[in-house]
């Protein structure tokens, strides 16, 4: 009987985590999937099963495709630059410099500010004419621009804000990784006459790859997850030029009151993110050097 009891013991230990995971992750996912097969109802018109009709509607929905396109540009714009900047900043503050703590804190500050507050500040940075950016341009006699009101520049504005917000956060991970690198490597490199550039590309960067993978995944998830600033800055406009997928899902669910179509969009987003995650682990994992 002891092994039987041990099994129960094991399951009991697992129970709290399992309950939470099932209640807040697995069940909602399945429920979303089921709901996406129904047409939203109201009290007076009950929901009806329509199979894949919601998905067909999604494929014909221009706003959905615009959101997908925007999101891809948003991801491409934010991920590489914020990571490169984070690495640059980490290398910089890892060295001995005066007021190092202060510099580190300055880089990290954007991360701890709530996104809504940040968006409110940047809203006034971007304001045409009276905003910080236009005032700065004015010093050089350059004309101002309607940054958030122009569909050609609005997405870039969001990208800049997001990079500013995120780079400091990723820097912390790089900084931790850099500090765990054994100093002997650098000494050995110096003895062998390796230049700083060579040393970085051949030693530091490969050793940081596990961190980079972690940061890339986080950055990617964030580029689909971070939409708080849209509520303040653009509400997805002008004419959907800055709509991101998650914001569109919110709009469909809570402004249009169409939970089924929102579920459909959510399934699409989940499927896409799952695909990316699998791809990253399968492809990148092989090429990463773990100590």
């Amino acid at each position, binding site marked *: 009987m002891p092994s039987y009891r041990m099994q129960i013991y094991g399951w009991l230990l697992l129970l709290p985590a399992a309950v939470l995971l099932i209640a807040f992750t697995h069940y909602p996912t399945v429920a979303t999937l089921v709901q996406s097969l129904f047409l939203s109802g109201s009290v007076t018109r009950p929901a009806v099963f329509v199979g894949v009709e919601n998905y067909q509607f999604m494929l014909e929905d221009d706003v959905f495709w615009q959101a997908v396109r925007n999101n891809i540009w948003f991801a491409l714009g934010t991920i590489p630059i914020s990571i490169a900047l984070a690495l640059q900043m980490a290398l910089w503050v890892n060295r001995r410099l005066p007021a190092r703590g202060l510099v580190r804190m300055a880089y990290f500050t954007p991360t701890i500010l709530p996104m809504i507050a940040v968006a409110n500040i940047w809203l006034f940075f971007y304001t045409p004419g009276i905003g910080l950016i236009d005032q700065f341009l004015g010093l050089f006699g350059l004309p101002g621009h*309607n940054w958030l009101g122009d569909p050609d520049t609005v997405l870039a504005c969001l990208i800049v804000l997001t990079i500013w917000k995120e780079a400091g956060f990723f820097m912390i991970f790089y900084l931790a990784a850099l500090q765990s690198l054994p100093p002997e490597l650098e000494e050995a490199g110096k003895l062998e006459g390796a230049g700083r550039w060579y040393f970085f590309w051949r030693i530091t960067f490969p050793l940081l790859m596990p961190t980079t993978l972690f940061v890339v995944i986080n950055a990617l998830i964030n580029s689909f997850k971070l939409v708080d600033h849209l509520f303040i800055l653009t509400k997805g406009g002008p004419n959907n030029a800055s709509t991101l997928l998650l914001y569109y899902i919110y709009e469909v669910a809570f*402004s249009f*009151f169409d939970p089924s179509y929102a579920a459909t969009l959510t399934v699409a987003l989940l499927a896409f993110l799952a695909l990316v995650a699998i791809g990253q682990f399968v492809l990148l994992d092989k090429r990463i050097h773990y100590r």
Partner: protein
Amino acid sequence: MMSRRITNLLAGGALGVGLALGVAGAALAKTQLTMYYPVAVGGPLTQIVDGMVADFESAHPDIDVNAIYAGNYDDARIKALAALKSGEPAELSVMFSIDIYELIEQDAIVAFDDIVETAEEKAWLESFYPALMENGRTQGKTWGIPFQRSTIVMYYNKDAFRDAGLDPESPPATWDELVSMSKQLTKKNDAGQVERWGAMIPSTGYAYWMFGALAIQNGQVLMNNDGNETYFDDPAVVEALQYWLDLSREHGVMPQNTIEWGTLRQNFLDGRTAIMWHSTGNLTAVKDGASFDFGVAMLPASERRGSPTGGGNFYIFKDSTPEERKAALTFIKWMTEPERTAHWSIETGYLGTSPAAYQTDALEAYVQEFPPAAVARDQLEFATAELSTYETGRVRKLLDDAIQAALTGAETPEEALSSAQSQAERLLRRYQ
């Protein structure tokens, strides 16, 4: 030991339930009302409402009102409907006036006509400004009672008018005057860059609301009263959007592309624009923030004057007993009494909802001392309903997108509006 702890827990739980039952039993004599109320952040508005609720409770000891503050209009609607769905009590709420069709579709609200009984109560239903009732009436019944309501007015910088050689006491009254005066008001520096724009009409956030004003001024409403037809591609509506676009592209008196709702007031206060169209809800903030002499005027006319109304109405939920409905009606009637409306209007800047409110001594004195407060009232005569249909969120977004597409030059006004119209028709087909 484990089991003893569980027994203790159970005993404690039973005691708790017993207490709760006891409390409920004692409170049965009173009618309990739960009211959902949209307030974005706790602050002056919460205090004012709390104060009014406390006054009501002392005047009506048999009714308890429990106000639940719930974010913006969308949040309040979501929370109230979720509460009803899960069996939590909710008898009344202040919600967006344009949510009426959604609430009827959800079978969530009851018409006031089915609750009022006495002649006095029926007369009360007719005591408000008709323009403010438009968004609360459909299918021949009254579903919403106006409470925190606003409208669009034109704010203008009198100093800028003087600077441009214009009479500060005669703001533009027609579309043509708006163009010609704005041209005079637009000031460029030596490098040819605009230092002061003639006018700004915000086109983010509530583009459809501003556009409703232009459309009605050009003689056309945006939808029918049954909420199942829109008129976005009507020639007068297309012309209204063309006029809005021309202000920037043709006449150069307004910045191109979209103008941000949230920062417009700052633009006006900083003198970056001589005229702005904005909600009456901004009156107090402009009054407090303006370092110059400013005026408030009715919006200009093309065919006629006009502006949509906006803001929140009282609704009574269907899931309530006759006693609770009666109590809710008592409360709403009390809240909309002229004296109280006057107090509310002075404290918040929202419109007084009935002519009787403006005849009270308090509001009469206030209007005398601060004439801009009267502009919104006078404009009510020309006001119309805010855009509100079935599927209202989607239809509103279609129009918002069309307006922004036209203003950013992505599509012509005609293309943008006819595409919005055909999509709206598809959405509204099932409600015909």
